[in-house]
Structure formats: C-alpha cells, structure tokens
C-alpha cells in the first residue's frame, strides 16, 4: 500500500502523471509551495529524510504522524526556524531560501503554534495590528486604517469578546483566536496549524473549521497538523503521513479514513518486526508507589497507577496526553486537584519534590538542561545534589565533606560510565549522553525506591541510549520501581508493561509480547480495544 500511495503524491508536480490518469480538480493549479528532497539531521537523529511535498492554493493539507515523525520539523523548515541540510523549497515554482522567520512572513506564510507569542498586556486589536501600523503623515503612526481592518478581521474570525481587554485576561482559546486573527491580517497565502484544537472547546473548534473553509475559498493554502484524526478526516483535501522523518503515504480525499490513516502512522508491517523484548520478566514485587484517581485538569483526567518493585513500567502517549503532568503529580512537583498518591499502600501527602526525595522517589525530568542540570558546575556538584545529606559529617558540626562528595561522584561516574570519568568537568562541556547519565546517576546515591524518567534518552546518542536502557534494567533487578515516559515508542519495547495515555487517561495496558509499537500508537490515538481498566490489573496483584 505504501508504494502505491507514494506514487500518487506526484500528481500535479513537475514530474507529472501518465496522461491517461485524470488529474484531480484540486491540483490543477501549480503548487504554491513545493518541497523536494528536504533532509535534516539533529545530532544523531534524522528528523527529515528526503521529504517531497506539494501544497496547493486553496487546499487543506493534513500532516499526520507519530511524535517525532517529522511533521513539526517540516513546518519549522517552512517557517525559517530550521534550515535543511539538503533539498529545496520552491514557492510559485521558484527556488527560495527561507533562512529567517521574516523571510517566511514576507512569502505570506503564517504559523500558529501552541505558543501564541502574543503581547500579554496589549488588547486584541493591538496584538493583531502589531507591526502592521504604517507610517502616516508627519511620520506618526497611522493606526486608524490598520485598526479598521483589524475590526473587520475580528468580525470574520468571530471574536465576540471585548477587543480592548488585555489578551492576558482572556481564556486561552480566545487568545488563540486573536493569534489566528493576527495571521489573517497579514494577507497570508499559507497558514500552518500545529495541533490547533488542543486548547479549543468544541464550539471554538467549529468556528475554526468554518474559518478554514473560508480560507480555502479565498485560495489560502492550509497545512493542518493534528493528532486528532477525526479532524484530519473531516477537513483535509489531501493527507501526507510521516514516519521516522520520511513520507510514508499520501492520500486523496476518497482514500482518507480513520483506519488508513492509523495504518500509515503505525506502519502496517511494523507488527512483523515487533520484538519480544522482555527477557526474564520476573514476577514483579509489591507495589511501591501508587496513585488513585489523580486529576489535574485539563492534562490528567483521572489516572490510577501502581508501580511495582523490580518492574519497568512504560508510559506511552502523544503530545498533550498528560504523560509529563502525571510524572509531576507522582513526584510532588504539582499537586493533584483530586485523588491521592500512596507509598507502600499508605496515603502520603506529596507536597513537594523535597518530600518525594526524602521518601526515596527520584525524577529525571524531560528537559535536562533547563530542569535537571547545573550546567556551569562540575559533575561532583551535579551528582551529589539529590543526596546532600549524605555529605554531612557529624563530627565536624555537620559541615559537608568535599572528599566524600568527590568519592561519591567518582563511584557514580563509574556506575553510569561517564566518559571521560572526570568528575571535575563542567557539565556544560559534556555531551548530551553524558549529561543525561549524570541526571540519572544522581538518583543512584542513597536509598531510592522509585525512579521516574521523562524522556530518558531524548537527544542522546545511540551508544549512551543503550547504556541507559541497560542501567534501567539493572536498577529494576535491584528492586527499584521504574516509570519510563517516552514519546519514542521504540524505547518502550523493553518495558515489562506499557500504559498508554490518551487525553489524560490511561486507555490501554500492554504486557510482554503485546507491547508493540502499532498497538501503542493505536491506543495513543484513542483507537484502543475497549478492554482494560488499568486500575484493576494493578490492584489485583
């Protein structure tokens, strides 16, 4: 199926289709944007590999794919945020270099991300007019004309709230509409939406859809990235599916169904290659850390979970599924609105990470540079910080012993295989893999019972990645309970069981041989079999 659909994508492009095949009406015009052979590598990760894509005026082009499949990187290329290693982008048939976000704006490209970049203290009109107010007579700003236009656009978008209120005081969804209005002010030829409905209610989503319909009739090209396949299904004139940085399928309207989309995302043949990874999955120990009915709106909508000693539990989920928020709740970094956390079956009030640390729970956060490491300090400083109390020497009035700090750092460096094993190195100078080893290694000091890891191998080279996975298994074998959160579903294959989150809930629990990437992906897209109540399985043990 893959090879067939790949062919169809070329329709209307320079290569052309055999004359016998009638061209679909939508693609009759020349493409507005034509991306060919675009490749981009970040360190060891190949984010885009030879991507070809045509975007036509007046079409809604859906982009689908799992986390890290390449959709967002492609959009960043068009936005001038990322410059491709190879390949080119042509606009109106002419090869163009988009080296700067300003270039993209000049081409009439507008982008709506989840971060809106509005000026919080400005009202809707000012935000929409920002940078557009022309110079009038005497060099004074000529606001009247711009504001008039902003009012018209506001009406089109359906901004039915006071336009003179600072946008910071507006709900997120309304802010989003303001940002949309701002894009429309700029006579856009292409508008790209990245997960637009994540912060919108049903009502606003409908509004968005009608706006998109209007854009289409105005000849604006729309790129629509979403994990919500029903939206893709409803809106798109064409859909391009990404996997591992490459285009794996292209669909025309009549081919777009939920199932074909999911198949493209997950890879139909992936089942065959799925490995049975769990070696010697021993009987898990007792429940160490548990949670009942955790709610933290809107990200976590009622999660119960049990982490067993000696078990590696994976959590799979797409962006916005509530994975990271769950980790933060379990670690006391955020407090749940409802529900409770239990340690050894007893309810604990986990009010802060300090308390979690004291109780023997560790967290390796998602963003190691901003959330985990002290980059301008050495490895010794970074490793001992979680176990500061172990450095105090009673006989010396509780002063800390630098010798002990270095000794502990050295033994940790050895355990995590820091390369080179020099504990005086400033952490900023280490590679991503070494940095991650330290972020993990600091939790090996002292008595830890639970370790929660959020994206443990993101931006880490292959070698370090394998080492980290081996380390996690070793820790489990020592009796630690581990929770591994990852958007890289491949790395979850080695977990003892995997919980899949979708819209703030655990919708699937997979064990042993049933842990496959397609099953994780299906569940992550909300296409799980109506089975497990994940609480039940945990509790029965």
């Amino acid at each position, binding site marked *: 199926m893959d090879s067939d659909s790949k062919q169809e994508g070329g329709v209307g492009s320079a290569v052309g289709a055999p004359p016998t095949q009638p061209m679909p009406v939508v693609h009759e015009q020349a493409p507005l944007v034509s991306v060919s052979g675009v490749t981009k590598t*970040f*360190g060891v*990760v190949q*984010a885009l590999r030879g991507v070809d894509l045509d975007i036509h005026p007046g079409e809604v082009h859906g982009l689908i794919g799992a986390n*890290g499949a*390449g959709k*967002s*990187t492609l959009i*960043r290329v068009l936005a001038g945020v*990322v410059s491709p290693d190879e390949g080119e982008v042509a606009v109106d048939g002419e090869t163009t270099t988009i080296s700067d976000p300003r270039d993209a704006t000049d081409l009439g490209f507008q982008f709506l*991300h*989840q971060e809106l970049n509005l000026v919080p203290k400005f009202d809707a009109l000012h935000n929409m007019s920002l940078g557009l107010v022309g110079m009038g007579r005497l060099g004074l700003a000529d606001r009247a004309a711009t504001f008039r236009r902003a009012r018209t656009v506001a009406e089109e978008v359906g901004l039915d709230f006071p336009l003179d209120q600072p946008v910071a005081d507006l709900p997120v969804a309304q802010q989003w509409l303001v940002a949309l209005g701002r894009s429309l002010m700029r006579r856009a030829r292409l508008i790209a939406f*990245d997960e637009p409905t*994540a912060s919108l209610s049903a009502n606003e989503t409908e509004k968005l859809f009608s706006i998109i319909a209007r854009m289409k009739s105005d000849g604006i090209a729309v790129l629509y990235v979403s994990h919500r396949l029903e939206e893709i299904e409803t809106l798109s004139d064409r859909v391009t599916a990404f996997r591992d940085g490459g285009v794996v399928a292209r669909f025309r309207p009549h081919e777009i169904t939920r199932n074909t989309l999911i198949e493209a995302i997950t890879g139909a043949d992936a089942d065959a290659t799925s490995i049975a990874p769990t070696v010697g999955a021993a009987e898990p120990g007792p429940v160490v850390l548990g949670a009942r009915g955790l709610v933290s709106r*809107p*990200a976590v909508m009622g999660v119960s979970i049990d982490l067993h000693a000696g078990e590696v539990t994976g959590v799979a989920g797409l*962006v*916005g599924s509530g*994975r*990271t*928020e769950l980790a*933060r709740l379990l*670690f006391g*970094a955020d407090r749940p609105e409802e529900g409770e956390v239990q340690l050894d079956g007893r309810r604990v009030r986990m009010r*802060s*990470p*300090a308390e*979690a*640390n*004291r109780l023997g729970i560790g*967290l390796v*956060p*998602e963003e190691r*540079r*901003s*959330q*985990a*490491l*002290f*980059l*301008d*300090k050495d490895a010794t*400083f970074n490793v*001992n*910080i*979680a176990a*500061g*109390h172990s*450095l*105090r020497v009673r006989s010396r009035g*509780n*002063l*800390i012993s*630098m010798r002990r700090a270095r000794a502990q750092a050295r033994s940790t460096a050895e355990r995590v295989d820091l390369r080179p094993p020099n504990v005086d190195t400033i952490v*900023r100078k280490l590679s*991503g893999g070494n940095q991650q080893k330290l972020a993990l290694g*600091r939790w090996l000091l002292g008595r830890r019972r639970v370790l929660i890891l959020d994206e443990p191998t*993101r*931006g880490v080279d292959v070698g370090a990645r394998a080492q980290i996975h081996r380390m996690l298994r070793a820790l489990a074998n020592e009796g630690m309970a581990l929770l591994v959160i990852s*958007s890289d579903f491949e790395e979850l294959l080695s977990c003892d069981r995997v919980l899949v989150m979708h819209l703030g809930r655990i919708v699937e629990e997979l064990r042993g041989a049933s842990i496959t990437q397609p099953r994780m992906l299906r569940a992550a897209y909300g296409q799980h079999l109506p089975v497990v109540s994940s609480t039940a399985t945990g509790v029965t043990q």
Partner: protein
Amino acid sequence: MTTEMLPTPTLQPEPPSVEAPRKQGQLPARIASKYGTIIALIALILVFSVLKGNLFLTSGNLVDIASELSIGAIISCGLTVALIADEFDLSIGYVGSFAGVLVTGFMVKSGMPMGVAIIAALAACAAIGLINGLIITKAGVHSFVATLGTGTIVVGLNFLYNSGIAFSIGLPKAFFDLNLHKILGVPLPVYIAVVVVVILWIVVNRTLFGYYAQAIGQNAEAAHLVGVRVDRIRVIAMVVSSACAGIGGILLAAKLGSGQSNAADGYLLNGFAAAFLGSVALRNAEFHIVGTVIGVVTVGVAFNGLAIVGAPTFWQYVVQGGLLIAAVALSTIGRRILGRH
C-alpha cells in the same frame, strides 16, 4: 498549560558554533574573563606604588586600608550570599544605618548594656531579612522590589526611632573600643571582618545551605525538582544578608561614635560594586565570597591610592564606577569570544 512540547528533536538547542574560528583569541579572552579584576587590582597597586610608594606601601597605610575596608567587606560578603541564591538585597545600606541607630539608641535611650544592645540590634536586622525573605518567597514579589520597599520602610522606622537626631552622648567607652582597640597593631574591626568572611566562606562552600543556595542561583527550577527546599534557602540567604549589614552598621556606629540615620546608606552601591567586580574574578560571572573580597579590596585600594595621590574626591567615584563597568565588560566580552552565552 501543558509542559510537553513538540516532540521533535529540535528542542535540543544546537551548540553555539558562532565565532568558532576565532581560536587564537581564546587564551587572552580566557585570561581577561577570569583574571580581569585581579589584573586591575595588581595594576592599581603597581601604579600607586610607583607614584607614591613612600606613602602607599607603608604598614600604617596598609593597616588603614584594611580597617577602612572591614565594614565594607562584611556588608558586601553578606550581600554576596543573597546574590548567590539569585536574590537582590537593596535594603543592606538602610539596614546597616538602622543597626547603628538601634544599637546606640538601645544603650543611650534604654540603658541596655552594650552586649545586649548589640544582640538586640542584630536580631532586629535578622528579622528584617526574614521579612524580606518571606515577601519574596510567599508573596512572590521580586527581591529587587521587595527589598527596595522594606529598605524604604526601614528608613522610616529609623527616623521614627531617633527623630533624625543621632544618638551620641552617653555611649559607653567600650563601644568606641570596638573600633579603636588594637591587637598587634591591627584594629579590632579587621579581625571581626576576617572572622565574618571566613564564616561566610564556610557557610557558602561547606554547608548544605551553601550548596543548595549555589544550586538555586544556577538553576532554580532544577534545584526545586531535585528536592531542594528553594523558598527556605532563599529566606535564610536574605537573613544572612541583613544580619551582615547589621554587623557592619554597628561597627560603623562605633567608628563614627554615634548612630546616624543614613551612615551606612553608601554601602549599598559599594556592596554591589564589590560583589559584581568579584563575580568576574576567577569565575565566570558567578558570585562567590573570595571574589567579593577581591572586589572590596580593589575598590578600597583605588580609593585610598587616589586619596594619597591627591586626586579630588570626585575621581574616586569615577574610578569606582569605571572599574565596575570595565571588569564586568571584560568578562562578558571574554565569555562571548569563548562561545558561552
């Protein structure tokens, strides 16, 4: 409010590769950024030694410099602790003045013995630091604003307590001795300063509080997520800063022989100048006690030398300001060349 972001690997910022070709400029840059302040200090000493060595390099003058610097060293090093925890303290000057007024007032007005008066004054200063800390952590007011506010309130309290008239008559002789008493020819404040600075160095470098404070200064989010009780550490840092301002203020009152409402106000700018000068000594824009001492000495030597050379007073200020900007600029440029933001 999701903390998850787009899952592409682009989130890993690419290492700064700009200016990589300027390799040969790296060594001087590294030296300038690390040793700029010290080079400036040595240069000052050399210049003054050459110009007026017979006056500058006498043991008498060096003792003078040391005693002149002792109060500034105490206040600046206290401030450094707050700065290490990434908090400003703009109240130190006013708190110092307040301490002088309180300690003299307690003795003159309330008839307290000197020891009790000192302890009571220091307790009051520590309490101000506690309030600063609580405003910053509990009310979430930025320390810059919070301490500006409390500092101003302290000025008011100061006038309330002494009605603007310095307490001077009726102070015990022992109080003046705090400043005048000499051991081995060196005045007592120098010893006190040495003891305070050594204790502060130990607090910063050999206690968990100091470890955590440094962590907060580096990356407060990471410190929080690793289990550091960030708020508590910040409050303590503010208390240390205020208490040191108090010690300095009391010594100043002993030196002046009276508690004047604005006696120590100037130590605010002095303290910041020294701490920022010191932050670029030996380290990359990182506050530390040894650096602050170097900063204090640099400013002090410049002042003293200019006075000995006979430069008009205004030059002292011009040089102090110039030194501060030059040292920080040197290190910033140095770091830019080294490719670290």
